[in-house]
């Protein structure tokens, strides 16, 4: 639908800029049903034919001129690029905030693990301002064990830290 509309726009623009004289849109003797409504004004041709087109040829077969492509690209750029920029910027700000929150959560968990190494649980949930966070703890090694902590929101890791704790019986 959008492509069709863009194509119509481009065709219309190309017609405005086409220096060749406009062609007759109706064949001899043919009357448009809207002829009675015609008002005076600049001459427009409602058909998409141009002089030089083969009889019976449709506009979809003639391809685009360079001007049409440039105008299409310009419209696309003007509308889409600022939209994308805004979306990406907003995502970046949200991600920054989540990264700071994750680092705060990890700082708390790291302190708890350091103080109570025997009470480590592999996963637990935290709720911060209505958002669920999952803290995962992976313990590797015995004696001075390495604990890898990750803070995840909706399955995405926003922070990771490593704590070494003395843990017996691993």
């Amino acid at each position: 639908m959008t492509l069709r509309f863009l194509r119509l726009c481009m065709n219309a623009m190309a017609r405005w800029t086409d220096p060749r004289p406009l062609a007759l849109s109706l064949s001899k003797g043919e009357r448009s049903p809207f002829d009675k409504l015609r008002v005076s004004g600049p001459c427009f041709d409602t058909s998409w034919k141009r002089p030089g087109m083969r009889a019976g040829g449709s506009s979809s077969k003639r391809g685009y001129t360079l001007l049409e492509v440039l105008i299409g690209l310009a419209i696309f750029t003007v509308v889409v690029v600022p939209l994308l920029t805004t979306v990406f910027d907003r995502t970046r700000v949200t991600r920054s905030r989540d990264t700071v929150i994750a680092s705060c959560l990890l700082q708390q968990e790291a302190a708890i693990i350091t103080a109570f190494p025997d009470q480590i649980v592999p996963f637990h949930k935290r709720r911060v301002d209505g958002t669920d966070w999952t803290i995962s703890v992976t313990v590797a090694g015995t004696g001075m064990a390495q604990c890898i902590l990750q803070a995840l929101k909706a399955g995405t890791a926003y922070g990771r830290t490593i704590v070494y704790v003395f843990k017996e019986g691993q």
Partner: protein
Amino acid sequence: MKPHRDARGVTLIELVLAITISAIVVSMVFFTYISIFKGYKSHTVQSQHVMELVVTRKKLDNLFSEVGAVETVEPSRIVYVPSSQASGTSTIAWASRKLLRGSEESGIALKDMAFRHQTLEGASSGVLLWEGHTSAGLWVGGGCVVKVIGAAVGQ
């Protein structure tokens, strides 16, 4: 005499259609740019809030790094022995949306703040946890391992 087609102009329906389509397109572009502008403004404000969050967190870390051992932990006040001193206590308290160190302002503005303490029965160390909201309403928290002096045990 044959009518001259080039001078036939546009029909009313064509005119109406052209105006309608151009009005739709122009209004779409207009509202898109308005929303982009608003989005840009709110994005700038959000960036400032995140920056405030980072700075507040750093200040809190600095403040709590001087806690050597905790004596009393209450939801809005802790009494502690600074790590730089062998004896003598100091306090960190949240009051009137500000964090106070002793009787002085620490320069940290917070919407709310709560302290928690976790320790095991008879253990000589525990965890001091703090969390609150910046003046913009963003959550901030942290924690550190601290020594425990009597009264803080079990709180």
